[in-house]
């Protein structure tokens, strides 16, 4: 099973090269057809941004784009159509204009109306990837859970035995020691969190895939949920520690309130930015390395970069695991510190 996954991952890393060579080819063909004299210049920054940001429709390579539903709410009206309509009509369709991944309302003359708010609830590339990862997670863990009912009282088998050590590791090494005796209550959420981040980190490494866990919105939601869970389960010691830290003269309290307030917000903010920056950073490094091939157009550099990219991809797979682990670990620690029972005197910071 593990060998299988390794094989799939290494194949996917290899296929990045193929995907990019196609990319380049179609770029050139396109350039040759429309503007015969001006050769289209390769813009690395644009290419990287295109790959790490969200988009309407899922573009695997230049000529292969999966249209996704666009869902818009504007002036109390719902509009649903395929993202292919924008591509066919140069970004303007049905009174809406798609400009740099943002959708604006346009009037009859084709002028953008910035005053009318458009709520964009489209199934973008990231949302599609989110739904796909949900389907993957559900099928994996339904299969695992089924294994426990069919192999009841027997040794685990198949997918069940592949995931069991990971589940047990998260349960016994991450959640139990950090959350404390009441860990059972938080275990389902923390397991979901770990596998959600892990699966999406790994999916993001596949060629042509979305950069879901490297999207600030997604990491913000995950960090916000951690914040909510921590503060909704926090006990009186936690709040008392924030409001009236022991060993501090009451005159100093306002200063401590400011510090504690920043601290409380910094914890989820660091979670949010750490995951976003690690995953996006990894993608930028790999894309920049591969971009070098198209900048230099040299076999020697291409080969060197290829080897280095393979190495970086290996590191990124490791980072995918480490970041999922760290997010879960820190969330466990924050919950643990909020629900911890203090038997001895607290010495403050």
């Amino acid at each position, binding site marked *: 099973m593990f060998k299988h996954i390794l094989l799939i991952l290494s194949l996917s890393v290899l296929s990045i090269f193929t995907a990019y060579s196609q990319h380049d080819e179609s770029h050139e063909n396109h350039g040759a057809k429309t503007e015969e004299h001006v050769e289209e210049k390769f813009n690395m920054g644009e290419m990287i*941004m295109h790959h*790490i*940001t*969200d988009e309407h429709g899922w573009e695997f390579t230049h000529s292969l784009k999966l249209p996704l539903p666009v*869902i818009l709410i504007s002036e109390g009206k719902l509009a649903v159509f395929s993202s292919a309509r924008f591509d066919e009509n140069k970004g303007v369709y049905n009174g809406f204009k798609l400009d*740099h*991944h943002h959708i604006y309302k346009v009037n009859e003359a084709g002028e953008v109306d910035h005053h009318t708010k458009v*709520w*964009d*609830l*489209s*199934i*973008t590339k*990231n*949302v599609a990837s*989110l*739904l796909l990862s*949900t389907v993957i*997670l*559900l099928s994996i*863990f*339904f299969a*695992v*859970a089924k294994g*426990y*009912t069919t192999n*009841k009282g027997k040794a685990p088998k198949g997918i069940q035995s592949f995931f*069991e050590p990971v*589940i*047990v590791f998260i*349960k016994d090494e991450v959640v139990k020691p950090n959350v404390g005796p009441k860990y*059972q209550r938080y*275990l*389902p*959420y923390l*397991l*979901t969190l770990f596998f*959600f981040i892990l699966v999406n980190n790994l999916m993001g490494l596949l060629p042509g895939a979305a950069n879901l866990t490297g*999207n*600030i*919105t*997604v990491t*913000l*939601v*995950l960090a916000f*949920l951690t914040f909510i869970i921590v503060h909704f389960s926090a006990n009186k010691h936690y709040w008392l520690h924030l409001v009236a830290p022991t060993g501090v003269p009451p005159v100093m309290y306002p200063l401590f309130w400011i510090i504690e307030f920043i601290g409380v917000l910094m914890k989820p903010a660091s979670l949010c930015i750490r995951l976003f920056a690690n995953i*996006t950073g990894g993608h930028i490094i790999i894309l920049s390395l591969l971009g070098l091939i198209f900048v230099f157009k040299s076999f020697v550099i291409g080969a060197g970069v290829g080897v280095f990219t393979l190495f970086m991809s290996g590191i990124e797979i490791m980072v995918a695991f480490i970041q999922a682990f760290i997010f879960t670990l820190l969330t466990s620690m924050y919950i643990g510190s909020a629900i911890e029972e203090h038997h001895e005197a607290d010495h403050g910071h």
Partner: protein
Amino acid sequence: MELLLPSPGLLLWQIVVFLSLFLILKKYAWKGIIGALQEREGEIDSALRMAEETRAEMAKLKADNEKLIAEARIERDKIIKEAKEAADRMLVEAKDKASSESAKILNDSREALKQERAAMIAQVKSDVAVLSIEIAEKVLRKELSDKKSQQSLVSELMSDAKLN
């Protein structure tokens, strides 16, 4: 900059989808998985505890057995010792009895022999007396044909009788 700005559409989808994923997994997957894992942990724990208890019981049984064997050995030694003592005592008694019996028998027979001899001697004495009287009568009858010889004989007999 676009990278750092959250988009409301994805925000909503992420919250809805992630929370639904959590609730579905919690109800249909984690509950069963965690339950089964805990059950198995409990089973392993109880099996290990049982093995430990069995081992302790075995050790206790072994100790008991050894104690029993030791006790039996002591008992056996005691019985053997007692039997030996009894046998010795009996032997000594038998010996004593036998020696006293033999002494008695010897005594009795000695006594009987004494009496027998006394009786025999008395008998012999009387027989000798009778015989000598008869001999003397016969001799006297033959010898006492003349006076002189009678006289010498008497004196000879007298001197002999004194010797007796």
